């Protein structure tokens, strides 16, 4: 397909779990950036809308060998099997209310098109999609802080992280205005990225070798010889993706020095981990 700027982007992020302190800045920054509502009781996490959610993982060892790591989880913007753009959620939406932007690799969600069948939520193993069980309400006057760049959602539709797409729209608009073909790395950064006080999140274009995220992740363009559904596996031994083996091909990568953390990123049968933990991408694949 022909785009205004011919080379397609593939926006993604890598989150350094060793830097992450679980402080919650990313969650709040996301909520206030994207007009996410709040209600009286948000302690039931199964109906609490947090596009960016920070999970708390433990190594399961007992005192005093216990370890904790915090794992921020935005929408993973899956590329689907073979990274062809058939994300688990996009392929199932009956009303085309969510699509895969081949120009950005970002999975959209259109609130006025969604009629709330929630099939996409069932299909998403990351629980990154949230349903508006209630009409949003803001205390008197507080609606004055709502941003015009993101549409507030009505009851009965699904919403999720958009990688702050409106920031991309605005950055592109500026580029057009200045008659540039494309935007700079720092012109488009998500709200969670810029907010993180620890600088644990790095966001950019995985197709652009100049970008920091690409240099950290070193994504392998070839399908994983052990599982052809998997594309873009990281060649950095410290980097992994959530549930990579399902072939969802997320664009969100995680970085950790700790082995137990990397293991927690996916499911492995007994003893399986030790066999494949050192397998990173096709080019470095050591096992047949």
């Amino acid at each position, binding site marked *: 397909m022909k785009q205004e700027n011919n080379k397609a982007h593939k926006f993604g992020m890598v989150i350094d779990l060793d830097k992450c302190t679980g402080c919650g800045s990313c969650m709040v920054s996301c909520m206030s950036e994207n007009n996410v509502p709040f209600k009286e009781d948000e302690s039931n996490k199964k109906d609490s809308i947090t596009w960016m959610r920070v999970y708390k993982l433990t190594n399961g060892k007992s005192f005093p060998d216990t370890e904790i790591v915090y794992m921020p989880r935005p929408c993973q913007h899956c590329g689907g099997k073979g990274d062809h753009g058939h994300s688990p959620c996009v392929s199932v939406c009956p009303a085309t209310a969510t699509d895969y932007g081949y120009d950005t690799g970002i999975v*959209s969600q259109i609130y006025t098109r969604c009629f709330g069948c929630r099939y996409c939520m069932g299909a998403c193993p990351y629980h990154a999609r949230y349903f508006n069980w209630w009409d949003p309400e803001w205390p008197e006057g507080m609606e004055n802080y709502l941003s015009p760049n993101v549409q507030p959602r009505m009851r009965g539709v699904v919403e999720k992280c*958009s990688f702050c797409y409106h920031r991309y729209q605005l950055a*592109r608009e500026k580029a057009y205005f*200045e008659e540039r073909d494309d935007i700079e790395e720092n012109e488009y950064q998500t709200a969670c990225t810029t907010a993180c006080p620890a600088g644990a999140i790095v966001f950019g274009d995985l197709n652009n070798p100049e970008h920091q995220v690409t240099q950290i992740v070193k994504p392998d363009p070839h399908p994983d010889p052990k599982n052809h559904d998997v594309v873009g596996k990281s060649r950095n031994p410290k980097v992994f993706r959530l549930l990579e083996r399902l072939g969802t091909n997320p664009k969100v990568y995680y970085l950790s020095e700790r082995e137990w953390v990397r293991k927690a990123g996916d499911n492995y049968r007994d003893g399986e981990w030790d066999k494949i933990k050192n397998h990173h991408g096709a080019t470095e694949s050591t096992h047949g």
Partner: protein
Amino acid sequence: MSELENKTENGSTESAGECASGETKDDKGLGLGVIFFIVAFVVCFLSGTLLFPKLLYSKKEQPFNFDHELHVSEAGDCDACHSYRDDGTFTGIPKLATCLDCHTDEPLGETEDEAIFAEEYVANEKEVPWLVYSRQPDCVFFSHAAHTIKAGNDCKTCHGPIAESTSSRPYEENRLTGYSRDIWGKNIFGIKKHSWDRMKMDDCAECHKKETGHQGYCFQCHK
């Protein structure tokens, strides 16, 4: 419009003729049936075509008349007032401040509109509550820069020959959807004579397909 009126006349005369001849010819009421048919048909068709739009759209007058033609001749092209900000966003309808580049609370001309503007708004530093003909729904992201600077369209393509207008027409709002009539079809039959007659998603898609080879992904125009 006028054609339609003619039609109605013809229609009614025909029916009258039918009526006259029908009476003598036929008393079984078949003719009467035909007459009733035609009358009912014409009445319903006309009310559906002429009356219905009046009911469907509510008319709102602008705060006061605005003479685009005059301003274009005085101030220059569209972008003299409808300009871009440094971040590439579009100002749309100018704020009072922009007007004050030329205007003062001393009326520039002696039209009563100018007077209203000077007294009610400039004097009280009140923004003019213009009604925006081309306001898109809140789910839409539209970049003027992309369509003009990048794609090189002129304003007329979407906004029509508004620059030549000497007075502001009333703003028509669809009672059902709450959207401006300019967006959702000027022509009640949905016939599109000019590119600016309608600006629904399909119209965007049509042009995008033609110009970029692709009708675009959701997020290209949605937020």
